[in-house]
């Protein structure tokens, strides 16, 4: 089974867009970002010095419900911490992130949204990069399941996720901070610490930071670190877009 794949700018009308698919969890998400735009319903009394961030999640087969409102709130809280909404041109305007779940299993009422959360985070960060929205850091996220014997499963399929004791989604910034953690199911703190170590390795490789501040990406048992996926996708895109210049040089 291959690792996750991503592409930048699949949509031509949006300011920025990205698609992301993770074969292991079966999730496939298409996201677009429009920023900065004028929001019609914006009230200036509400934080006039900052940009308003709006996230919309559209499930593939069903109309959106309370589960989508919840996950939109999670994404908004996480992303608003890394989007620099006070840069020039952004205050009082809006950053609108729209995420459509294109493939994968549909999520029923009251069911856990965690299996698709890493894909939604990756899609939105790539779409934000593609729209050139100022960010303080980038993020990478992963989902891990722990079964009742304590074994950690990376990126479980939806059938696996239903059978496990606990599910954990962790998102790390490119500087190694834990930005987001969503865990559910019965577990204890020692289990979570093991999950944390494993997730950090998946997102950042074994050695997180070199002495010169460069991120040293090392191949591990978990193949390429996810942080590298975000970088490589953007680098590839730049190579394509600047091909005329690189060839001329």
């Amino acid at each position: 089974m291959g690792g996750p794949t991503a592409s930048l700018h699949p949509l031509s009308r949006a300011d920025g867009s990205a698609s992301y698919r993770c074969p292991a969890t079966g999730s496939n998400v298409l996201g677009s970002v429009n920023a900065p735009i004028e929001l019609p319903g914006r009230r200036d009394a509400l934080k006039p010095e900052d940009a308003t961030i709006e996230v919309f999640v559209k499930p593939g087969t069903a109309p959106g419900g309370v589960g989508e409102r919840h996950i939109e709130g999670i994404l908004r809280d996480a992303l608003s911490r890394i989007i620099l909404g006070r840069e020039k041109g952004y205050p009082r305007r809006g950053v609108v992130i729209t995420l459509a779940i294109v493939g994968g299993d549909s999520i029923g009422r009251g069911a856990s949204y965690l299996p698709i959360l890493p894909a939604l985070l990756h899609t939105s960060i790539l779409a934000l990069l593609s729209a050139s929205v100022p960010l303080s850091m980038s993020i990478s996220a992963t989902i891990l399941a722990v079964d009742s014997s304590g074994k950690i499963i990376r990126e479980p399929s939806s059938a696996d996720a239903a059978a496990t004791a606990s599910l954990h989604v962790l998102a790390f910034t490119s500087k190694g901070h834990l930005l987001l953690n969503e865990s559910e199911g019965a577990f204890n703190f020692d289990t979570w610490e093991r999950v944390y170590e494993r997730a950090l390795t998946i997102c950042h490789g074994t050695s997180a930071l070199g002495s010169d501040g460069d991120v040293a990406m090392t191949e591990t048992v978990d193949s390429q670190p996810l942080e590298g996926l975000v970088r490589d996708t953007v680098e590839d895109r730049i190579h394509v877009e600047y091909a005329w210049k690189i060839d001329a040089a």
Partner: protein
Amino acid sequence: MASSAAVSTAPPALSLPPSQFARLQPHAYLLAHLSPPASSQQPSIRANGRAPSQFRVTSTNTGSLTHTNGSSVVRLGDTTAVCGIKAEILHTEDIASWSVSHSSSSSTPNKRRKLTNPTEKPGEDRQDGSDEVEDDDSYIEDFSLLVPNLSLSTGCAPGFIPGAPPSALAQSLSHRVLSLLHSSRLVRSEDLEIWYQRPNLGPEELERHNEDEQMDVDVEQDGSGSVGETREIKAFWVLYIDIMIISLAGNPFDAAWTAVLAALRDTKLPRAWWHADNETVICSDLVSEARRLSLRGLPVASSFRVFEADAASGWRAVIVPDAEEERKIAESDRKGIQRRWVLADPDGYEEGLAQERVCLVIDKDQRQNGKVVIVKMEKNGGFAVDRKELKELVAVSAQRWEEINKILGQC
């Protein structure tokens, strides 16, 4: 009158009362409370007079609403939640997928799966030594037997207009309550099942019939005989859990979840059975026959917010210390100035000032000397809380569990 005016002219009234300062400079106001100057000899205390890890006074009252099966009022400081639980009957013939997937005999594959592979169940279950056959909880999720709804449009806070459609916050809270009910497996589906015990028709009675009728009966008996019992589920109780936040001063989730817990503990379902002749479910009106739900454990929610001394930390272009440096700074923190405070049970004022939030749902396993089991751990919106901080918060939440356990035990 004139003399008093003359006296007050001396100091120009530029000093503001604390309440106005709190409105004009909320961040500085809270920071001044949390880090008083060293010379003043005052303890670090929140603007509302609580210590950073102190929760508000919590009180509960159950069974106030007579038209519900169970109800509760929970006050968490000035946040008040009312929860009412109404049970309604869902006939299995009204469930479209029932006849396909779960006819009378087909509940056995589920049970069989459980019995052959008990290790696949979450840890909580294996400790339930008392129930011999594990109850299949997929019914609750598959047929939506628990329907929580949380309403904020009650005029609970100035921002929420009565009669408006449910806000994103209300929808999100409803979803969190529902997903926590599912993931903590608090309600047992065996409590919600209404069974029908088929009368045992003795075979000697049947032998008097003629030959071909007996054949039919035999076939039927073989089919049900393999199950062992002639029982089948005829209906389910559906619990409508309605939560009204009638006053909102921060931390609605803790209040709502505590209200749900208290109401579920208060819920009594009447004895119900299937009446074969009328083909309907009959409920007993005797209070003595009604039974309470047997809940699994007591998951207690505690929420926290992180207040940063640096007002610009939320929007600085270069978040300077990376995670490694951050830990070193934290070491030297204890000697010098504290830069951030984790505030337990934030009120509305603090919620507006602190972006990063943590929510922990903790249960203690009574069979294993009160071993702490984390049911849900959410952390979002910031970089301050990492492993070390979360470990401390788990300990704080474990204390909170004791408090709530005592409060709920009293009502």
